[in-house]
């Protein structure tokens, strides 16, 4: 395994603190158990046996926003739901990330009307957009891997 090879027989590994923190953040990212519509079903598929999102340390969906650091907005966000969504986002502790899953959450999708918020980025800052209506579980997993790449490149000075 990678870590043992790096350790050798010395019992010491040198790494930049920034990299270590970012690595640990990517490997234990807890998403919030929060489904809105159709995409939530595909999100459940991504977690079940065939696609198995726990390979990325993400098997633990937390129902409480206070215990989670990734919000997957899975589905259409309506005008009635938007304030609730924002409150959930505000309750999440930093550092936190948002994935807009599906066309509705990204840009309103097929619903260009009075009821649907045209993209969840009107309400919360979005890190990764996943296209599809609904996206396949593979697409969601790709979105998460993309987010991991982004997190690995984050700098402390940007957080401050």
């Amino acid at each position: 395994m990678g870590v043992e090879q790096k350790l050798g027989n010395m019992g010491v590994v040198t790494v930049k603190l920034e990299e270590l923190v970012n690595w640990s953040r990517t490997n234990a990212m807890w998403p919030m158990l929060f489904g809105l519509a159709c995409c939530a079903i595909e999100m459940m598929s991504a977690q079940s046996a065939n696609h198995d999102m726990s390979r990325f340390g993400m098997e633990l969906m937390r129902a409480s926003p206070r215990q989670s650091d990734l919000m997957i907005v899975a589905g259409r966000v309506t005008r009635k739901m938007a304030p609730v969504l924002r409150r959930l986002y505000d309750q999440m502790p930093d550092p936190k990330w948002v994935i807009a899953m599906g066309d509705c959450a990204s840009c309103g999708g097929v619903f260009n009307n009075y009821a649907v918020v045209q993209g969840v980025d009107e309400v919360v800052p979005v890190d990764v957009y996943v296209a599809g209506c609904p996206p396949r579980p593979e697409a969601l997993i790709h979105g998460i891997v993309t987010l991991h790449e982004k997190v690995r490149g984050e700098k402390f000075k940007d957080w401050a």
Partner: protein
Amino acid sequence: MTQIQEVSLDEIRHLVSERAMTGETMLLNMGPQHPSTHGVLRLLLELDGETVVNCIPDIGFLHTGIEKNMESKTYQKAEVMTDRMDYMNTVGNNFTYCLAVEKLVGLDVPPRAQAIRVILAELTRIQSHLVWLGTAALDVAAMSVFLYCFREREQILDIMELVSGQRMMTTYIRPGGVWRDVPVEFEAAVRDFLKIIPKRIDEYEALLSKNPLFLDRCLGIGVISGEEAINRGLTGATLRASGPDYDLRKFAPYSGYEQYDFDVPTRTEGDVYARYLVRMEEMRQSIRIIEQAMAKLPLGPVRSNNYKFVPPPRSEIGTSMEALIHHFKLWTEGFNPPKGAVYAATESPRGELGCFLESDGGPKPYRVHFRTPSFDNLQVLPRLSQGHFVADLVAIIGSIDIVLGDIDR
């Protein structure tokens, strides 16, 4: 953006009992972000200790304006919106809408298309019940069933992808038939699925049906009598678990359901466990229907040849001027059905799914309305949950099998 409104106790006085005003009972908010409400349902609970005194559902968190949006699209293009209504029964929504359009313009559907529709609708029913079983079992703390159910569901989604190119939002059933004929691999894929699924359903039953923990959570919980269920407009498995055997596939057969031999499972207990048993049996009956439909899947065209309403095959467009004109007219203007209003209904996994279409003679529907089973089934929740514990409320919500996209549309 509207803000979350702070509501004072006075404003909800008409919803709760007098005891809540004095602080004798507690008001508790459940949802819209709650793992057990199956989506974005909000419940205002009035609790006496752990017992539910009053339960007031607050819906509309997923109101998408689908019916209104459909009025601005032509009849063919409006069909895409129906998929996203009840997202566990996507094929069934297309089916209902297409039946309504066919009734409006008087289209005949070829027998092969009818049989394909039945096969896909029944596969969708199994798929929907599998998701229901997984999540409802998860609500009463049976985790493993969820993983098994989604394993089989993937196989159904693969079949959907095989025929339509999409896993969930297929839009494969079109007015006048289906989009195109099923690929050659279709029969083998369905037969493979039919081979394994009966054993798998036995496995789920072995995990749950006699499990004492599951029985404790389900037996005698949320009981409703057959008469009251009818009076409250329940349909689907929620109704049939109380006694009445109302199933549209028997009472008003559509798309050739009268040719197939199947039973309508009923129970008389009317509790959470009875609803579970009815749905498990329904999956077995769906398998029977699919087997019969596969056995006599007729050959022939899969779309009506009335080119005023149904686009001609692509192959004809290159050689026939008429076909080109029809194609062009249909995809730019749409078709103009006669004035009038129709209602068509199918048996969705949740109950009677009806589509009301009103035409003013133009290419776009004047009014579309859906009678969605989840909406009518949800209204029984306050009645079912009274006097039960909060933990039982979770089991009851699971047992009436609501889909919020179906309620709010």
